[in-house]
């Protein structure tokens, strides 16, 4: 018994962490990431991949609802930490490990049973506690957010939401007219448009001229390498976005990064780190984070090391032919923003690299509105869309020039 507990504690000593940063917690997030990198705790990709949910700062009501959904999707054993300040970070993380390792075994067993029962009977699983959290809060979250009409998902965390519409796609594939014309018996599929509370997909012409299924999905507000709080509502055909709208959750919450003390080089490295994560280059992303954290140091020699490191990672990214080949041509922003925000993803990456290496260049300007970015996302594939979003510096205050009503 003791042995198994110790084994458990050992196994959970390096938990995977999902960070949710509320607005205005940039420095806190950087400090946390630095500490996680130092400890070798990996960053989680999705709720399924998460052991520890780390909530930084004070989330607004909509983000809080999304976090609750996210929490319900995390498998046992799990632990949630709310951090307001980086002061006792080390202590809090130690405590987290202890709490995870000591998570009451009965709670764990309790959680596992419904999951298995749910596997046999998808609908039956709803009664059980572990599962209940997941399905129901999904809908609750949606009600809170007040966007229920748009898609059955609300912001259910990482878009588990829209998914349900997904595979029973094509009900609409067969339109009534055609059916009437055919005039044969045996179609009983037109009773009601939803399954398990989720509407069916519709069809629309795709870019190749075929009328295929469209799914309404909500992507965000919490994803790896994604600006927390950003919500992409899109129509998805396969993996191509046919329409896209971007908005912030808690749009009235304007606690952006405090003005005045922005360190451009660190900001650029931060941007690069999340972009490289999205581009699937974790080693370079780690280097960028490392350089960013070193630049915050007050120690002279550490600072010099960090500068060299920043230059190295910027040079490596800038010169990478593979990265250039894979992102070139995506996301042309021909905008009124002036020279520095235009161009494709690659141009912006290179400009970020220039800033990151400490050069005296202007950082790419943030787009003035989310709609401008959303317009570029239309017609791109999901991965490209993620790259485009990661390549621009979106900040909450800038987005507010685009009125919420414009989304409709």
């Amino acid at each position, binding site marked *: 018994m003791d042995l198994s507990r110790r084994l458990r504690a050992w196994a959970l000593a390096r938990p995977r962490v999902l960070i949710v940063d509320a607005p205005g917690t940039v420095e806190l997030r950087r400090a946390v990431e630095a500490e996680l990198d130092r400890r070798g705790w990996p960053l989680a990709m999705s709720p399924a991949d998460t052991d520890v949910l780390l909530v930084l700062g004070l989330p607004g009501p909509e983000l809080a609802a999304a976090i609750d959904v996210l929490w319900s999707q995390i498998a046992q054993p799990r632990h949630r930490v709310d951090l307001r300040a980086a002061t006792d970070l080390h202590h809090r993380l130690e405590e987290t490990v202890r709490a995870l390792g000591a998570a009451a075994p009965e709670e764990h067993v309790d959680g596992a049973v419904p999951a298995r029962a749910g596997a046999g009977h998808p609908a039956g699983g709803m009664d059980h506690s572990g599962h209940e959290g997941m399905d129901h809060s999904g809908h609750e979250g949606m009600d809170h957010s007040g966007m229920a009409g748009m898609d059955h998902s609300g912001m259910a965390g990482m878009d588990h939401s829209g998914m349900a519409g997904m595979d*029973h796609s094509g009900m609409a*594939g067969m339109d009534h007219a055609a059916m009437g014309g055919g005039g044969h018996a045996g179609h009983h599929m037109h009773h009601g448009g939803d399954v398990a509370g989720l509407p069916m997909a519709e069809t629309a012409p795709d870019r190749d001229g075929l009328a295929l299924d469209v799914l309404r999905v909500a992507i965000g507000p919490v994803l790896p390498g994604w600006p927390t709080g950003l919500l992409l509502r899109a129509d998805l055909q396969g993996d191509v976005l046919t329409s896209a709208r971007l908005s912030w959750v808690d749009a009235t919450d304007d606690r952006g990064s405090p003005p005045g003390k922005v360190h451009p080089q660190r900001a650029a490295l931060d941007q690069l780190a999340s972009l490289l994560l999205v581009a699937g280059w974790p080693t370079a992303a780690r280097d960028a984070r490392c350089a960013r954290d070193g630049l915050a140091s007050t120690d002279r020699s550490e600072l010099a090391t960090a500068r060299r490191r920043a230059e190295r990672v910027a040079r490596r990214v800038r010169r990478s032919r593979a990265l250039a080949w894979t992102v070139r041509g995506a996301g042309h922003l021909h905008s009124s923003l002036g020279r520095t925000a235009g161009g494709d993803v690659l141009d912006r990456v290179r400009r970020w690299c220039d800033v990151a290496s400490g050069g005296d260049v202007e950082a790419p300007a943030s787009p003035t509105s989310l709609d401008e970015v959303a317009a570029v996302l239309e017609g791109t594939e999901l991965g490209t869309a993620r790259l485009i979003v990661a390549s621009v510096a979106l900040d909450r205050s800038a987005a507010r020039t685009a009125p919420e009503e414009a989304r409709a």
Partner: protein
Amino acid sequence: MLTDLSGWTVAAVVVLGVLSVAGGIAVFVVDSMARATFALLASFLAVAGVLLAFDLVYLAVVTALMMTIEMAIMAVFMIMFMMNPAGLMPMTMVHNARGSAVTGAVTFVVLVVGIWTVDWPIGRTERPEDSTRQLGEAIMGSHMLVMLVIGIGLFATILAGTVLATARGRYDRFGADLAAKRPDDPIPGGLPR
């Protein structure tokens, strides 16, 4: 004449045979199109298993390989074109079910009557050491003509299939006078052009 298959092998053949037919029936019974596709794959894999028992190693493995790839692609088309691919709503889409069932059943009965009445000429012949080698030598020797025709047929299929399925020709890509330097594709590929 006794079979040279062991009792276990015969049992395995019978079980796999039953599985293959069950998979075949499941294709038209289950609601979910994804499940139908993979029921068909199960049927193919069961037949591949029987071929393995008959020493036809190459054919068995190739059947598994080809059919898996084919079914994986089939699954995508199923989701593209079929309503209700996940089978979340019970439905059937058949016409002339009775006539089809009768046709299927009659065919089966006729075949079975034939199978069980014909006096099969089971000979005492030499088995080749390696069935794969036998097939390979046939393809490259006595039966080369068959492979040549198959090759041409497959090539024609590739061309015809592409032409039928795509809506864009070179005039769409390179302009009416084919003068464009770079093709106008919705998604640029990985080649520098």
